[in-house]
């Protein structure tokens, strides 16, 4: 600690604190432009200069750390005069075009001139002009160089936080400007964090340009609907129209950062493809009807089927729906449709019952339900089966932050490369399927680990089976990881969506358990979090949108488990184990599906068997699709129910940290659409059931009452920063089974993997005009040498063919791609990627040829 006196007030502050920060803590305002808490100090704007006793010159408080006995003055005439002159210098060449500047009204330069500046401007010569017109750096970022005050926040956030290294500083002296390579940011993330941190109107958002004055905006704080990071968004609306999306430093896991989807992709709520009214299939196709007619139609067509019983009915709901909707969906399916065939993930070919059992164990204990920032404080982090940069970008920023600032030892094992690899001690490229093998081999090599295997139950067998001398391509990675894990006191494992696509998912999840146990036995703290690329996967699972499991991972087959739910819901519940979505489709294909209810999901696009899903969906006798958009699946439906988007209904999401955060509507649902919860109630009512009160408060209270991990939470108590759910198991999640260990597959050919891209995740992003513009078409990403071997050129049209089907797209070469892997993003409806795929086969062997 250091005793420091600022403007006469003496306080003790932690060593290493900057004077600026110490002053802020005392409520003393020191103006600055270049300082940002999360960026390395630059000390270039010279606004924060202060007097320090014993120092001849004023010192930058943003870059000077406190020292014991230091006496600082921020309130002297010299300091005031200096601030005034720095502002006068900054304004000398500033265009002072405030009336037409988007930033006006929330401009830090304006504010500081108002607070600290001089009343007059003495500079009377020609001002510097870089360009007569603003530069479109890319479709979302526009640049006015004249207004720039060279604080370099943008360049630094791009490099230090985002890691894109797209923005830079070019030229020298008065000609210095920030820009991208050759004045373009065409290849950057388009995340717009540079816009967010710009104190003036130099970097501006193109979609927001000339849309509003800040004081005309109504701002609502809510949660991003794209991935499970659960970033806070502040959405501004002017006259009912979405104006812009920002974020705030003070709140949320993300601070002021967002990714391109969060910042620019929320415009999907106004996408052209929004459903306007309920639709019912009549002769001549889907026809607009009233809500009453749609409900009556469902009642009429579903009645007989419900009486027949469970196996002919089923439902799929999206992990993008909020907790309350998901909870009501499963309640509706179980009580009104009387089926346990409920699922919340159509994408993952391998996440079957075995995987769910492991998941329950994980979520019961090992899963870290606490802030990602804390989880990342481990000595060692392993990211398994994730392309973090594309799937959960803001999480990626945070991982980069700890790797750089804390020297955390980072390991990445994934199919696809990403720029996070450059922060890692070692990165391993492997095709999905060998995750359990990899973890087992890793554990085997940690010093002293083998002695703990005896206590690992059935898992012992597979642990011992794993090769101690792994295949050469694993060698270096394993060696470094074993050493680092061995030396670490705490280890964090972050698991991505890729792992859940893998045919080895169940085995891998068992092994994750094993890892936790073994590390625990070695006296290390082990924590796990998922890196879901959907905002509420954790909520969907924990609230019972799973086959055979009631909310809270409770087996529905157990009468004692059912009893409290039956009592609370006033209904008897079916006891069968239900079907997952794959079995629902198989039944439908066999002509045995009477009612299939799809809420917020587009399995026609995402289910990894394009042939089956199209045929099976068409064969369902009554296909109900509830969505905000006219999806491919909706086009096949018999009834289409227009639903609110995340921004038009209240509710909560549970993010990857297990944190429940409140969604606040920014407006009422568009057109005739209704909140999902209300639609479920309406359907239940048509079927003669009462779902009970569906207000967000009531539903949340019911969840908190029935679901152990939500016990004690209240909607009122969530506040701005949300509340963590809690582990519900006494110990580390039950018995360990003995998963099959698939050794790494080696094929000579190419293997297709899929997933999110920077700009898209699932069908939602495709409904965003901005994201659609940034990335309009599917592409095939592969290694240049592999492409050269096939005589394929960058940008050329190629055909990707599997034993099930083919697709066409342009080739995109990436020298960091492993030679045997091909990636196609999974969101482009036109590409019909899933026609190539077969359930349970992942990755998919393919050939790539010239078109």
């Amino acid at each position, binding site marked *: 600690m250091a005793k420091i006196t600022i403007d006469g007030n003496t306080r003790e502050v932690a060593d290493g604190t900057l004077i600026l920060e110490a002053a802020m803590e005392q409520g003393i305002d020191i103006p600055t432009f270049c300082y940002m808490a999360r960026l390395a100090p630059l000390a270039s704007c010279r606004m924060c200069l202060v007097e320090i006793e014993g120092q001849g010159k004023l010192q930058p408080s943003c870059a000077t750390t406190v020292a014991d006995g230091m006496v600082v003055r921020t309130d002297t005439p010299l300091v005031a005069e200096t601030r005034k002159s720095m502002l006068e210098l900054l304004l000398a060449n500033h265009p002072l075009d405030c009336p037409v500047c988007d930033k006006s009204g929330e401009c830090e330069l304006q504010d500081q001139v108002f607070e600290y500046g001089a009343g007059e401007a003495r500079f009377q010569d020609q001002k510097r002009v870089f360009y007569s017109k603003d530069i479109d750096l890319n479709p979302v970022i526009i640049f006015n160089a004249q207004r720039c005050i060279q604080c370099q926040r943008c360049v630094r956030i791009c490099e230090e936080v985002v890691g894109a*290294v*797209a*923005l*830079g*500083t*070019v*030229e*020298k002296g008065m000609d210095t400007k920030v820009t*991208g*390579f*050759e004045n373009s940011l065409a290849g950057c993330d388009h995340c717009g964090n540079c816009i967010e941190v710009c104190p003036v109107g130099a970097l501006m958002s193109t979609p927001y340009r000339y849309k509003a004055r800040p004081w005309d905006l109504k701002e609502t704080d809510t949660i991003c609907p794209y991935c499970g990071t659960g970033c806070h968004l502040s959405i501004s609306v002017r006259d009912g129209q979405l104006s812009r999306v920002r974020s705030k430093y003070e709140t949320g896991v993300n601070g002021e950062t967002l990714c391109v989807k969060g910042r620019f992709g929320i415009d999907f709520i106004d996408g052209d493809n929004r459903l306007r009214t309920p639709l019912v299939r009549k002769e001549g196709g889907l026809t607009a009807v009233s809500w009453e007619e749609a409900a009556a139609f469902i009642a009429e067509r579903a009645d007989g089927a419900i009486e027949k019983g469970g196996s002919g009915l089923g439902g799929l709901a999206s992990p993008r729906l909020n907790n309350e909707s998901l909870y009501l969906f499963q309640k509706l399916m179980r009580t009104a449709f009387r089926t346990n065939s409920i699922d919340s993930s159509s994408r993952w070919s391998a996440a079957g019952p075995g995987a769910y059992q492991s998941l329950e164990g994980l979520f019961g204990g090992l899963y870290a339900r606490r802030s990602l920032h804390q989880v990342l404080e481990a000595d060692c982090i392993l990211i398994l089966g994730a392309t973090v940069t594309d799937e959960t970008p803001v999480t990626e920023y945070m991982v980069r932050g700890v790797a750089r600032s804390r020297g955390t030892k980072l390991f990445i094992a994934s199919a696809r490369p990403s720029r996070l690899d450059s922060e890692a001690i070692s990165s391993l490229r492997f095709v999905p399927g060998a995750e359990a093998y990899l973890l087992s081999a890793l554990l085997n090599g940690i010093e002293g680990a083998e002695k703990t295997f005896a206590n690992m139950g059935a898992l012992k067998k597979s642990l011992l089976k794993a090769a101690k001398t792994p295949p050469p391509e694993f060698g270096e990675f394993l060696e470094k990881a074993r050493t680092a894990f061995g030396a670490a006191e705490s280890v964090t494992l972050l698991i991505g969506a890729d792992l859940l696509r893998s045919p080895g998912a169940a085995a891998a999840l068992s092994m994750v358990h094993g890892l936790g146990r073994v590390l625990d036995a070695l006296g290390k703290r082990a924590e796990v979090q998922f890196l879901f690329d959907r905002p509420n996967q954790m909520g969907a699972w924990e609230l019972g949108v799973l086959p055979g499991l009631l909310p809270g991972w409770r087996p529905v087959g157990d009468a004692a488990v059912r009893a409290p739910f039956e009592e609370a819901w006033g209904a008897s519940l079916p006891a069968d184990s239900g079907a997952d979505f794959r079995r629902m489709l198989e039944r439908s294909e066999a002509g045995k599906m009477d009612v299939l209810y799809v809420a917020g999901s587009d399995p026609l696009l995402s289910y990894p068997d394009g042939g089956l899903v199209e045929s099976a969906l068409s064969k369902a006798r009554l296909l109900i699709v509830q969505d905000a958009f006219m999806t491919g699946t909706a086009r096949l439906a018999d009834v289409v129910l227009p639903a609110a988007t995340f921004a038009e209904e209240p509710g909560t999401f549970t993010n990857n940290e297990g944190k429940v955060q409140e969604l606040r509507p920014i407006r009422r649902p568009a057109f005739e659409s209704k909140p999902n919860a209300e639609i479920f109630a309406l359907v239940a009512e048509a079927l003669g059931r009462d779902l009970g009160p569906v207000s967000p408060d009531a539903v949340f209270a019911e969840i908190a009452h029935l679901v152990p991990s939500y016990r004690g939470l209240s909607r009122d108590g969530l506040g701005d920063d949300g509340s963590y759910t809690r582990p519900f198991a006494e110990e580390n999640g039950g018995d360990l089974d003995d998963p099959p260990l698939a050794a790494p597959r080696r094929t000579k050919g190419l293997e297709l993997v899929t997933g999110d891209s920077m700009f898209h995740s699932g069908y939602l992003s495709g409904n965003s005009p901005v994201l659609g513009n940034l990335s309009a078409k599917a592409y095939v990403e592969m290694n240049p040498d592999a492409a050269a071997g096939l005589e394929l050129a960058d940008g050329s049209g190629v055909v990707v063919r599997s034993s099930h089907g083919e697709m066409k797209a342009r080739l995109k070469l990436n020298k960091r791609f492993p030679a045997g892997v091909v990636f196609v993003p999974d969101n482009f409806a036109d590409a019909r990627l899933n026609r190539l795929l077969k359930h349970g086969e992942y990755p998919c062997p393919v050939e790539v040829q010239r078109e």
Partner: protein
Amino acid sequence: MALKNSIEEAAKRYPNPRSAIMPALFLAQKEHGFLSGDLLKEVAGILDVPEIWVYEVSTFYGMFHTEPVGKFHIKICTNLSCQLLEAESMLAHLEKKLAIETGGTTPDGMFTLSSVECLGACEGAPMMQVNDGYYHMNLTTARIDEILDGLRKEAAE
């Protein structure tokens, strides 16, 4: 390929590839005359560093040219010691002889004329340098004419 090899050779002098950006740009400029966007990309590719890093460096340092320059780049110092000894009239003379303004290139692409900052040879003021050649010191208008004639002759050969 030759460029790639020489850049990779230069990179061995440093513990990381970013350090080799400056030597790489010198090598690239020597081979191609100036640093086009494609050339900057190529350098970034060879060193496996972000393109913007190469772009930043190429624009910060005065000896790197991101635009084409003439076959003979005449750089005359106009800083104080040279200015006191009539560097400005030497510059005016060059402008007149070459019929271009400072910063310009003759239409035949033969000469580019720049006024530069101190070249560290003030004892021989006024002075200039042509391309990466030895310094020409103690300039007079007659000496300049002689040098220009020599350059023209060199070009003709």
